[in-house]
């Protein structure tokens, strides 16, 4: 009698506990070994790019949040910077600082969610609750700031919509002092855990070459040893005014991708604290007093100049028409480089909006990493890449 091993084709998803949304993976298994894997995307396609063409710029602004719901501020910033550079609107310094503070806090909350779900993919349940406990604090701060917990719609062309609520910065400061201790708490339970190290070390090694070929960006690329960070080089917004390190790791395995995100969260806290310190005009409660008292009207006054405004000039919401032109913005989002390409034909609606999102590349590199490894590793690898599905499909 002849025996043969038949490959088993298994459909992981679109409904599966650990595909983080509706990704479908066609996996060919031989026993537990993955022979072939094919990601099938598009289950969450909402036509974000096409919808822009039938909406005015301001109507499209709230939708931008939904491109990646875990890092709304970054999408908003990406779109706003693109439109601002077409319309040549200068963003006041205070507004830039507010953007930086909110974006960095958003980065922490996004990484926290990733940390919990990654560990959940590996079978450890409790880190999820710990990270959600701490993410909750950030979300309630955002709620106080923008009125929403996930989709903020807080930026507008030329700045931000509102100033910080009174004493909001004090709360942020207090939280930023608490957070490193909490990160240490995660590290105590995770980093040196032998099972965690077994599961992640030398698993899903992403080499420098493969990463660059596939267009991987962000923490995943930095974990492979490429020192690249748009905040540092070329440095958009006001990031060049802060001291922070670009964290890199050498091996590019799941363990490094975990460590690098913890480092990044620590760096983000640093940036937020520095930004609060340097905020032009100081906290909003003080600013109010100073502005009424000053009234000198000079361009570069510390208290009543352009730098302390939220938007340089008010933009007409209904009739906002940027001149003809096109622009691309590059933003270092938690998952990598988010890029927004906007073409304007001088009318009320954008002629074309194109999103380049980091998760898309992160999904595409999955077959390269997972082929030949065990089925259990698939979840570790996929989890460590930090993919958010709405961002893949747009």
């Amino acid at each position: 009698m002849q025996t043969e091993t038949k490959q088993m084709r298994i459909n992981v998803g679109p409904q599966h506990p650990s595909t983080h949304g509706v990704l479908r993976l066609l996996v060919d298994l031989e026993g537990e070994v993955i022979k072939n894997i094919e990601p099938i995307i598009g289950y969450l396609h909402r036509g974000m790019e096409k919808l822009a063409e039938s909406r005015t710029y301001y109507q499209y602004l709230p939708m931008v949040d939904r491109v990646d719901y875990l890092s709304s501020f970054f999408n908003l910033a990406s779109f706003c910077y693109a439109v601002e550079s077409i319309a040549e609107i200068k963003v006041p310094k205070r507004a830039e600082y507010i953007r930086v503070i909110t974006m960095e806090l958003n980065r922490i909350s996004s990484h926290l969610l990733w940390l919990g779900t990654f560990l959940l993919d590996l079978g450890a349940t409790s880190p999820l609750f710990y990270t959600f406990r701490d993410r909750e604090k950030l979300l309630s701060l955002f709620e106080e700031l923008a009125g929403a917990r996930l989709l903020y719609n807080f930026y507008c062309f030329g700045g931000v919509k509102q100033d910080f609520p009174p004493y909001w910065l004090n709360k942020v400061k207090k939280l930023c002092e608490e957070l490193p201790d909490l990160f240490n708490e995660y590290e105590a339970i995770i980093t040196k855990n032998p099972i965690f190290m077994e599961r992640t070390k030398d698993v899903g090694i992403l080499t420098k070459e493969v990463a660059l070929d596939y267009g991987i960006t962000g923490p995943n690329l930095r974990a492979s040893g490429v020192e690249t960070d748009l905040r540092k080089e070329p440095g958009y917004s006001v990031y060049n005014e802060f001291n922070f390190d670009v964290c890199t790791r050498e091996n590019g395995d799941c363990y490094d991708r975990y460590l690098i995100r913890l480092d990044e969260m620590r760096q983000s806290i640093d940036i937020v604290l520095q930004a609060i310190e340097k905020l032009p005009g100081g906290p909003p409660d003080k600013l109010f007093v100073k502005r009424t008292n000053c009234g000198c009207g000079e361009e570069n006054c510390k208290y009543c100049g352009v730098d302390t405004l939220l938007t340089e000039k008010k933009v007409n919401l209904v009739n906002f028409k940027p001149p003809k032109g096109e622009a691309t913005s590059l933003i270092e989002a938690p998952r990598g480089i988010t890029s927004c390409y906007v073409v304007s034909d001088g009318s009320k609606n954008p002629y074309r909006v194109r999103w380049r999102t980091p998760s898309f590349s992160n999904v595409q590199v999955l077959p390269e990493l997972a082929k030949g490894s065990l089925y259990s590793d698939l979840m570790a690898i996929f989890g460590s890449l930090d993919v958010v599905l709405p961002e893949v499909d747009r």
Partner: protein
Amino acid sequence: MYELYIKLFEYFNIPTILAQISWPVFPFVGVATTLVIVVIFLVLLERKLLALLTVRKGPNRVGPNGFFQTFADAIKLLFKEDIMATNTNKILFTIAPIVFFAPVMVIYGLVPFSGNLLAINAAAGLFLILGITSISTIGIILSGWASNNKYSLLGGIRGAAQAISYEIPLVLAAVGICVLAGSMNLPTIVQGQSGGIVNNLFFNWNIFSWNIWPAALGLVVFFICSLAEINRIPFDLPEAESELVSGYNTEYSGMKFALFFLAEYAALFIICVLISVLFLGGYLSPFNDYLSLLIFKNFINNQIILNLLVNIEQIAWLMLKTYFLIFVIMWIRATLPRLRADQLMNFSWKFLLPLSLLNLFIVAIYRFLFPL
């Protein structure tokens, strides 16, 4: 108890053969009720404990402090529609949960809960228990195969591989106990752990003669292997939620799922009882005498009441040890991630097996130096 029961029949002039036939009903009913009560309590305990460890509140809506949550869940499962997918093997699909559950129930009858509370006193009880536990694995494979679901099948295969490789160190660790006790009879094993080491001061306390001292390695091996046997984290690969959806019981719902669920928690409890029987002196108190004897022997002269008190205390001691172990297992669940299939195998064959052999060696030398 058995003698009393037969005497009762003789008193009423009923043939004693009827007594002999009908006697097993009582242990069976006793075991079944204990099992259900234990599981209902354990599920609640686990949920509350995990909630405590993961900064949540846990069930707190049904009854005082969520105490009746498990009852509500049980009722829900009872009334749920029993769904069977079209291409399942109907007979095997139905048999599988029973095959999985029945062995666990048998073990409840084989373990001594106190000096007198033991349903079946088998001469080689330990051997029987080790044999019966392996039957459960067949239930896992059956359910994985009969479900006609790829996730279930993978779960079933994993379950089989895991059970086979962890059975061996488990048995070897248990052999160490047989060497120490010179018997496979569980009451004998428990009694063999009494007496202390030297007969003075407090060294005559039972705690010093528990098997944990010579067979400490054995306890470690046995504990880890039993985690794998009952599919708990970090060895819950057959039902790895994030990989296999729910593993071998993906397709099950309603009462059949409840049976799997029941068996899992029942196994968790009984394996902890078994560990305390084998290594932690079972129902013995850690001191040289039972506390109830020390307190009550001066003013209660009735031997039967005194005996009853001792039995209750024995159960209490056993439960204390058991629940401590259960707590450790739940604590582990809240702490550790899951192992990978190949790491699981490596861990068993390259680490646990040599360790259990070393344990056997140490135990044999100990018994050689200090014969029974």
